[in-house]
């Protein structure tokens, strides 16, 4: 998310359009406080140094999807 005091409606509109959502100005204004709240929280975890924390998926050899 954007690292700013609060996202502009233009930027919010562009982000929404990227995922196929065409939102009205009223809808963007409604969304902005929630987006800004989550963005502020997420900035904190982006500042964490997680070193080489690995996200590789682990497959279980015992799972048989055909069973």
């Amino acid at each position: 998310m954007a690292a700013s005091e609060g996202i502009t409606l233009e930027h919010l509109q562009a982000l929404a359009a990227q995922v196929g959502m065409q939102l009205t100005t009223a809808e963007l204004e409604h969304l902005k406080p929630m987006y800004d709240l989550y963005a502020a929280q997420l900035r904190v975890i982006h500042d964490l140094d997680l070193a080489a924390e690995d996200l590789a998926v682990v497959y279980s050899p015992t799972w048989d999807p055909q069973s």
Partner: protein
Amino acid sequence: MTQTHTDLCYLTIREASHLLQRRELSPVELTRAFLERIDALDGKLQAYITVLPERAMASARAAEAAMLRGDYRGPLHGIPIALKDLYDTKGIRTTASSRVFADRIPSEDATATTRLEAAGSILLGKLAMHEFALGGPDPTCGFPLARNPWNLAHIPGGSSSGSGTAVAAGLCMGSLGSCTGGSIRGPAAYCSMVGLKATYGRVSRYGVVPLSWSLDHCGPMTWTVEDAAIMLQAIAGPDPKDPTSSRAPVPDYSAALKDDIKGLTIGVPRHFFWADDPRIDRETLAIVDTALQGLASLGARIEEVTIPTLHYTGAAQPAIMLSEAFAYHQRLLRSQPEQFGDMVRARFRTGGLMSSADYVQSQRVRNVLKRECAAVLQKVDVLVSPTMSSPAPAFATIDGMTTARRPSFTGPYNLTGMPAISVPCGFTAAGLPVGLQIAGKPFDEPMVFRVAYTYQQYARLFEKRPQV
């Protein structure tokens, strides 16, 4: 309504089961009592979306006939239960409390639905919930908003709101909730009852409308710990239809209900749950401190522990949840957004605005948290805390941002997948319930049950029912 009906509807599953097995109570009589109570009270409590009187009575008659033949299936046989309205029920509307699914009639049962039916339980109906299991009672979702039976002006918690209301008010004997960030334990705490989020993979999610695949858990909501053990026994175990379900052996959960915690070590992460944060209610913390003293008096050792990454769960859990929720709902969010309630539409849309970097970093935080919890659980048997950061808020104080602003005490264990239960531990001066959260090692539900049961028998809050 007669006193007899109230007495029957306030039996626990275990008590009713004993009466049924000894033929001192008939499933037909019991089911009829619940249907009459629902008819009398649900107008003001609004716990049910769908009541199934004909089906329930037919099932009760079948259960009675089976018992008379000597075909007794176990402690859920003839027990009236209800399901959160996101557990698929073949031929019965399953709405997830959303206009999007207003006419959705599944062609197949959820695995948990099938297992409860196989255990002989009687399905009374489908229960109210927050739309698509996302927190917050939304009057724009088009479905009833369940009320807290301890104070009708307050919410019963969510998202398994109707499950909390119905069990606490004696409108069913047990229910299944689902939990992505606290939707089982929250209503349990707010309604002074028991709610268990089983270990991720312990209960099949097949046929349960998803909110967030990697965070969704299933579990029982009941009046007592014993009843939660009985319900979990029926639904736990591997399911080939759910690739995340575990093949770990299913123990005898009722055998774990020892009234003894002498020598156990209880870890308390005070740095997080007792943080100097004005959003955390001090009266709740004082009640939980008293509960901890009670656990110590029962022979447990209380040890303060540190889990540094707990402080980042408030960012990681919603980012994962909303990103996955957007992925599931995006097509309908684009094509028929007006069908979603205002709160859920806004939060799902926010999930679509989060970046892949947000999601990946949140998953990495989740991994670190899991390792930290695993390390602490090498030294302690369970982790104990308040279930919720404050008592049930009044409907009048809720807005679309309430859930997002409030610190979550339950979300961390959705990230780790650990089993976690809420048991009643007291009431505020205003008469609102407070819950005690007990979390354990993955698949160690027996230990969680043991501590919860011992505390329950000590505090005896199950003896106090709401006046409805």
